[in-house]
Structures are given as structure tokens and as C-alpha cells.
């Protein structure tokens, strides 16, 4: 009996201590990362921590010299509680910050040394700095930043500005017909001056447009901040109390926890904003499809590896589409086209036909109900295409199964202009010679039941341009890649494959044979569900030339640079409610696993924020 009480007491202490600060995460948070690893916190320095992207929103407070040489341990933070990093955005404001437990308030303020006490809030002490608020209640702290979205501030500013009888503040940028002036015309037009905007110094009681906007932004920020804090501290409304999935997820003991509500992820749903404004009912219906689309993840530290279990939850409608989509049979033929030397490869195997039929069934009734001429015309077009288009031919040509491999950096032949000199006169002239440039080698292919259709397309294009030629076993499109290197297309064995690898086109159009991936790796792919990916970080991410990728992808690549190990992504079950994915990151023994965990959290943050 004593043992029972002792165990109960210990469990109470455990949960009592480990689930405190997360209840202060605002309900507006869309993405939450929770780190729950005592050792990790004790080892990492504050200076190191604030270099991560997930700290960027709040690091102004910390990156001021007060953290030099200090670890989180020195910062008075309680490691028995979780550190929760959150970010959210709606159409009025952005909220970011983190919540954590406090062990020693004096130590805490040696790091958060710019904060000054402001007020009390239902027993909580509110401290403020230039950017952020720090709220401490008992031994739990919330560092939060609330920023109004500028489009929202502009909207209110405009309404007040015009209500006061003012003219368009940007009128000088328009011509008499209301068209935006060309920059040169604007610069050349002496009449387009800013003189009509009253200067504050002329009449301190009259604000110009920008001063008005600054005032409004300041007031909105204050109000929104008060609103958010009031909900958390007076009304006990937080993400934990409003989202049962988050509330359940946050109880997990895994070293890292991830939560993202895709249905509220405004940035990812930017495409729907048009509908929100123009067709609000359609917007609501479309959003309904995404309701309940929440991604939950657990990161667990194992010996020399990190396991990341991801569950994507959906509502019934989206789930029904995904279920049909992932109900597909793996095409084994792709295995012979992934070389063993490949340092990164993926397979993606979906049933596009079934997904199309289901999406048609789910989405069309929503569109049909919309009383809008443009939507009605689109519905009619879609209905007619659905009737007239040969769907068998379409979905037999592209069934939805893809594979790809990164085969390292190879030198590819290009042409260059070279200057050659007459050694007697030093006159020079140009000549075309072969150049060698380094290029990442990719192969991407898809399964097809109708190889005749892509062949037909290529034949017709080759009549239009001399750049495209049938070279026997493959098609070659000269200068297709970055206007310099050729792209090879292989239509064989029920697969249509694109590659910039001349060696593949010349020697392996029938497959890599014994040089294809090993049976063990092939088995892992076949066992996986609709998706599988395997990347050797050192050989793939580290070797990708940053110049070849746009800023966003580059940010992600940079966040993983310098890492070693293998990342394997395996998809498990998919039903109408969820899809489960598992990512395993294995690395050499002796590496700092906690650091790896933070690096991975950071990479995820970069992707999902």
C-alpha cells in the first residue's frame, strides 16, 4: 500500500512538474515544438540555442551580450518542464514565443535583463521589453510576442484616414486615369511631390498617413496582446484547452513533440484567401475539407538514432480522398532504375485515378452549390471535361507513381567559348570548345501504361525543334537544363524517365541490373506504404550546390548542412482519419544526439513555420 501511495505521489510529481508551462501556449499557435530533454538543455549554451531559426522571433531579447558563455542551466530554467516553442498567424496578427518552467528567477533575469516589471495579471507578473512580454506565474514563464499583420493595420488606417476626409495618400503614384505611374515617369514628373502630406512639425495635432498608421499599429498591438494574455491568464483559454489533439500530444514523454494545425496555417492556405474575399461561402466549404488536418509528431532519442513518428490527421472528407489516393500497388519496376550508388532516393506511389474520382465526388457538390457565374462556368467546364476526356488514357499515361534518385555530383559536358591567341601578335579570336561543369545528377521517372502517348508528344516536338532528337534508346533535349546541359528521356519498360545523366542514357536504359539498389534496400521500399525516402545526409544534402535552389529550399538545405547520417522516411497506415509516417535518422555513434535532435527540430521549423 505504501508503495502504491509512493508511486502515485511520484507520478503526480512527474506530471505536476512536467506539464505546467504548456498550458500557457496561446490558442492562436498553429505550430508548436516541444523539447523535453533534461540533458539536452543542460548541455546547450544559450548562445548556441539562439542561433537556431526557431529562436529567430525572440532572439533580439537574448542576443545582446547578456548570454555570453551561459548555458540554459545558468539561465534559471527548470529542466523538468518542457520548453515549448510556438508560432501562429491569423489574418490579424502573428504570435510567437516560448513557454518554460523557472527554477531561479534571479538567474532568469540575468539573461532576460532587458525586462521591466509592468503589472499584475490575475496573480501573474507581467514584464515587458521593447519587443516582447514575459509573464511569470508561480514557476511558469511565457515569453510572447504579438505583432499585428500589416494588411490588417493598413485596412484600419485607411478606414480612419478616409473617414477623416483625407485624400488617397499614395495619389502621387497614380496618373489621372488611376493607373500606377511608371517609376521613370514618377521620377521625371516634378509635380509628384510629397508636399501635400502634412509634416508633423507643421501641426503636431495633425498626423500624416504614416504617423497615423504607426499609432494604429501600436494600439492594435497593445489590444491584441492584452486579448491574448487575458484569454490565457484570466479565462484559462489556451491551445491545450481548445485542441484535444494538442492536449493529448503534449502529455507524451518523447524528447521532442511537434504539432501543426494545417487547417489554420494561413500562410500555407494563401491560395484560399482569394476565395475568402470574393466567395466567402465557397471559402468556408473548402476550408471545411481541411478541418481537422493536424500533423502531430513525436521525436524519440534512441541509441545513435532519432525516431520521428508523424501522424497526419484529417477530417472525413479529406481523409476519404487520401484513402483512395494511397490505395495503390507498388510498381517494382522502378527498383532497377535506382542505382546502388545513389545517395538519396524516394518512391511515391499513389492511385491518381481513384483520388480524382473521390475528389470529384467530394468537391463538385460544394462547387455546384455556389451561386457565382465564374464558378458555375468552371463547374460546367470541369463537368464537360470529365465527360469528354478519355480518363483511361489520361490516368494510364500518368498513374501517379513517381520515383527519383540523386546520383551525386557529376561533371557534365557543355560547350564554352574559348579565346585563343596568336603568340606572335597577341591577337585573339573565339572558338567553341567543350567545357566540363559540375552538376547534381537527378533521375525522376513515373510509371505509365501508355508509353505511346509520351512518345507521340516527343515525336511532334522533335519536328518543331532540332534540339530534341531520338538517339535510339532515348530522347535527348540539348541545352534543356539551364540552357547548357542536355536532358535525357527514356521511355522503356512501362516507365518514362527524365535524367541529366548521360551515363544512364547511354548504358542503363534497361535498368542498372546488378548495380541497382540492394535487395535489402528494395525490400524496405516495397514494405513501405505509399511513400519512401532515404537520404544519406553527408552525401546528399552536403553535396547539393546551394546555387541551384531557390531561397526557401536553400534555407532548408542550409539547416541540415554539415550533418552526417541517414534519414529514412517510411509511410505506414493510411485510413480515412490519418496517415502515419515514420522518419528515422541514424548517425555515427559518439555524435551529440541532443544536438542532432535540435538540428532536426530546426529543419522542421524551417519547413513548417
Amino acid at each position: 500500500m505504501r508503495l502504491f501511495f509512493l508511486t502515485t505521489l511520484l507520478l503526480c510529481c512527474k506530471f505536476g512538474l512536467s506539464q505546467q508551462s504548456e498550458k500557457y501556449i496561446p490558442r492562436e499557435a498553429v505550430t508548436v515544438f516541444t523539447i523535453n530533454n533534461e540533458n539536452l538543455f543542460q548541455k546547450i549554451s544559450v548562445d548556441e540555442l539562439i542561433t537556431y531559426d526557431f529562436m529567430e522571433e525572440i532572439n533580439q531579447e537574448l542576443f545582446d551580450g547578456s548570454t555570453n558563455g551561459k548555458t540554459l542551466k545558468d539561465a534559471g530554467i527548470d529542466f523538468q518542464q518542457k520548453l515549448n516553442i510556438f508560432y501562429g498567424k491569423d489574418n490579424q496578427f502573428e504570435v510567437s514565443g516560448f513557454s518554460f518552467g523557472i527554477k531561479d528567477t534571479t538567474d532568469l533575469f540575468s539573461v532576460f535583463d532587458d525586462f521591466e516589471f509592468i503589472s499584475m495579471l490575475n496573480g501573474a507578473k507581467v514584464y515587458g521589453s521593447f519587443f516582447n512580454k514575459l509573464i511569470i506565474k508561480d514557476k511558469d514563464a511565457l515569453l510572447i510576442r504579438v505583432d499585428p499583420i500589416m494588411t490588417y493595420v493598413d485596412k484600419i488606417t485607411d478606414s480612419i484616414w478616409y473617414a477623416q476626409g483625407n485624400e488617397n495618400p499614395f495619389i502621387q503614384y497614380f496618373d489621372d486615369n488611376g493607373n500606377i505611374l511608371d517609376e521613370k515617369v514618377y521620377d521625371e514628373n516634378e509635380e509628384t511631390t510629397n508636399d501635400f502630406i502634412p509634416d508633423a512639425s507643421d501641426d503636431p495635432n495633425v498626423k500624416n498617413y504614416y504617423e497615423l498608421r504607426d499609432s494604429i499599429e501600436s494600439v492594435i498591438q497593445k489590444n491584441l496582446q492584452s486579448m491574448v494574455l487575458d484569454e490565457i491568464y484570466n479565462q484559462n483559454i489556451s491551445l491545450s484547452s481548445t485542441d484535444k489533439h494538442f492536449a493529448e500530444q503534449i502529455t507524451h514523454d518523447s524528447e521532442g513533440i511537434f504539432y501543426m494545425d494545417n487547417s489554420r496555417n494561413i500562410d500555407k492556405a494563401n491560395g484560399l484567401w482569394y476565395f475568402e474575399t470574393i466567395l466567402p461561402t465557397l471559402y468556408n466549404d473548402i476550408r471545411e475539407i481541411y478541418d481537422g488536418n493536424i500533423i502531430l509528431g513525436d521525436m524519440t532519442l534512441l541509441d545513435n538514432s532519432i525516431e520521428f513518428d508523424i501522424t497526419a490527421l484529417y477530417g472525413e472528407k479529406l481523409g476519404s480522398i487520401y484513402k483512395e489516393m494511397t490505395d495503390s500497388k507498388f510498381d517494382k519496376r522502378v527498383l532497377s532504375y535506382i542505382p546502388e550508388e545513389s545517395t538519396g532516393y524516394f518512391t511515391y506511389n499513389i492511385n491518381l485515378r481513384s483520388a480524382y474520382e473521390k475528389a470529384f465526388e467530394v468537391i463538385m457538390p460544394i462547387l455546384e452549390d455556389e451561386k457565382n457565374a465564374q464558378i458555375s462556368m468552371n463547374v460546367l467546364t470541369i463537368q464537360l471535361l470529365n465527360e469528354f476526356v478519355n480518363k483511361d488514357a489520361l490516368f494510364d499515361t500518368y498513374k501517379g507513381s513517381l520515383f527519383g534518385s540523386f546520383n551525386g555530383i557529376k561533371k557534365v559536358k557543355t560547350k564554352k567559348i574559348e579565346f585563343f591567341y596568336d603568340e606572335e601578335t597577341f591577337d585573339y579570336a573565339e572558338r567553341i570548345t567543350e567545357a566540363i561543369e559540375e552538376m547534381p545528377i537527378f533521375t525522376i521517372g513515373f510509371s505509365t501504361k501508355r508509353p505511346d502517348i509520351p512518345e507521340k508528344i516527343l515525336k511532334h516536338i522533335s519536328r518543331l525543334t532540332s534540339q530534341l532528337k531520338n538517339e535510339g534508346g532515348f530522347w535527348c533535349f540539348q541545352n534543356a537544363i539551364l540552357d547548357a546541359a542536355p536532358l535525357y528521356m527514356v521511355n522503356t519498360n512501362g516507365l518514362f524517365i527524365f535524367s541529366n545523366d548521360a551515363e544512364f542514357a547511354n548504358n542503363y536504359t534497361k535498368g542498372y541490373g546488378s548495380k541497382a539498389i540492394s535487395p535489402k534496400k528494395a525490400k524496405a521500399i516495397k514494405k513501405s506504404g505509399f511513400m519512401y525516402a532515404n537520404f544519406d545526409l553527408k552525401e546528399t544534402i552536403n553535396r547539393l550546390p546551394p546555387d541551384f535552389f531557390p531561397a526557401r529550399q536553400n534555407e532548408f538545405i542550409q539547416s541540415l548542412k554539415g550533418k552526417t547520417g541517414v534519414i529514412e522516411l517510411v509511410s505506414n497506415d493510411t485510413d480515412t482519419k490519418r496517415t502515419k509516417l515514420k522518419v528515422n535518422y541514424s548517425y555515427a555513434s559518439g555524435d551529440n544526439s541532443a544536438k542532432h535532435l535540435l538540428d532536426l527540430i530546426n529543419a522542421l521549423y524551417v519547413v513548417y513555420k
Partner: protein
Amino acid sequence: MNYMRKISCLFILLSSILFTSCIEIIDDILIHDDGSGVFKYTVNLSSSKVKINSILALDSLKGKRVPELSEIKEKIYLFKKSLSNQKGISNVLIEENYTDFIFKFSCNFSSPGVLQTGIENSISEISENQVFLDPKYKWIQWDGNVLSRTIPDITSDKLKTLDSKDDELLKLGTYTAISRFDRKIEKFDNPNAKLSKSLTATMLKVDTYSLKENENLIDNRIFLSKIKN
């Protein structure tokens, strides 16, 4: 700030990628006895066109905005227009090859001093930010009998900013300085320079990596024979 740096501005805004790609530069000047002459400057990036095309497809690189091709073309047009209006400069030609990324600039000048001033003024005119000129800096000096050429700051400044991972590319890049005259060359003090068979021209060719290591490599003083009356 010297005027060779501004030449690079002219040729690109591509300056941020100039030395991270394999580059060939030919700097060819002809000086007649009366000081007038022809200046030709060629930038050949054709062996890095894959890289340049990929960079131009990006919005930004290393935190700096990558200019649109149209902006580059406009800058070149403005430079040409401005230089054509400079006193003592004539016949300004700029050939732009955006397929192979080769840019050839040439102009006639009435004296080397006029050439330097003209280019400086034109660069200042088209620069968005104010350009502070160093009036003491002379890339090329000519007294009627001796021509002194030194390293353009573009080379030394830009090279200094590169990290060692660009070294392999730099080893493939070349900088060729050619000086031509109407009369014979008596002597020159850079032992790496070559003299033409007619004895009226010198050529100095170095790789850009060596130039990074030793910025005095292309310094040269060329002494000409006396003009026969």
C-alpha cells in the same frame, strides 16, 4: 574605389558571381604615339553558364538580391550611353551575349587619362549608390614613353572576399592584360610578360588564383623606344 571595379559593375551586377564562376578576362589596350587609342575589355563566363543560369534563376544569393537580366541589360545600356557622351571617348561598343555570357566592351579614347575619367564618370552616373572616387588611384599611367599598369582593385578587393572553397575555380580563371603600341618596346619590368614578335606589344596572362595570392602579379612598366623624328 577605382574604375576597374566600376567596369565590373557595368558588366554585371554580375559582380557578385564573377569570381565564384570560372572567368576569363581580357584587358587589351592600344596606345598610339599621340596618346590616343583603343580600349577593349572582354569578360568570358561561358565555361560557367550552367552556374550563371542557375544563379539568375534565383531571387537572392548569399543574402544579396540577384538582378534580373533586364536590369543588367538596362545598366549596360545606360553605361554605354553615358560613356558615349564623355569628352574624348568615341565609338563605344558593347556586345552582350547572354547565351554564352560573354561581354565585350570597346571604345576609342583621346588619352589614357580621358579613358579613366570617362569610365569613372559613367560608372558614377549609373550607380544607384553614391560612388566615392579615389582621384589618386591610377590603374594606368602614361607619360608618352612609359606605360605603367597595375592591378585593378576589382581583382584584389573581390578576390580577398572569397573563401578557399572557390580556389579550384579561381585556378581555372585567367586574367590577360595586353598592351599594344605604335613603336617598339625597349624593355618591361615584369618578367612574366611576353613580347610580341613585332616588339610592339606585351601580354601578361595569370590565373585568378595566383592573382588572389599575389596582387602585384600583373603590375608592369613598359618602356618604349624614342619616337624617331
